[in-house]
């Protein structure tokens, strides 16, 4: 597990999800994530942060860090997810909600979720491509 270092960032958000997405995209590219995976990570973080906007009554915070192996986005808020299997099943197309966490689990390489009455922490992992020999 990479730990945070000087190059890492921490970002608070309330409803400015476009700014959250811009930050994630910038760091994803900086970490060396290919374009289509950067798009996936932006989508995943935006869906998690959207849950903060929907359910939590206070701002959320985003931390991003990376090493040579992976980039991690950690989103924390004071909301509570009661269903431990949230997002593990694909909602039907008729369902008018519930796609968010399912999408997150589809696009990320790994998702860690911890939630209790004090709040929710979701950690999204994306593997970075191995540097080519000689580069």
């Amino acid at each position, binding site marked *: 597990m990479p730990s945070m270092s000087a190059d890492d960032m921490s970002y608070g958000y309330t409803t400015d*999800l476009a700014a959250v997405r811009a930050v994630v995209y910038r760091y994803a590219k900086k970490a060396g994530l290919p374009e289509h995976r950067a798009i996936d990570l932006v989508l995943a973080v935006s869906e998690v942060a*959207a849950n903060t*906007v929907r359910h939590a009554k206070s701002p959320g915070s985003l931390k991003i860090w990376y090493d040579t192996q992976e980039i991690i986005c950690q989103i924390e808020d004071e909301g509570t997810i009661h269903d431990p299997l949230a997002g593990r099943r694909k909602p039907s*197309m*008729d369902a*008018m909600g519930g796609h968010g966490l399912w*999408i997150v689990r589809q696009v990320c390489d790994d998702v860690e979720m911890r939630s209790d009455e004090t709040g929710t922490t979701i950690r999204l992992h994306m593997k970075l491509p191995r540097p080519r020999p000689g580069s």
Partner: protein
Amino acid sequence: MTAIPVESALWYNKGVDLLRVSVTARESAGEPYTLVEIIGEADVTNTDELRRLLDDEVSKQPRTMIIDLSGLRFMDSSALHALLRANRSLDRQGGVLALVSPQPAVAKILRLTTADRLIPVFASVADAAAG
């Protein structure tokens, strides 16, 4: 003073921070259709406005509604639900919804949720209007 496109009987812009939506009444080979252009970024913070606007247009019972996504940089699942809702309502009243030219991030969520199998996606408005 707002410019009105020549092919349009109806036109308006709705600025919702990140999102701009314009609606135009058009015709293709004598068949009228409603063209909705969604520009910017659509997410949970502006879904209510998007849903209301699409509901309004659907309630006018167009036979064909085409949503041009070429100017939409991002769409989240709540905005997708607004599109799915419009599709379902149109379908129930015998109308058709088509999507045009999604950018990569938007194409991704359409593909992932298989919404692109429910709503046809075209490369251009002309293609969509030709059906």
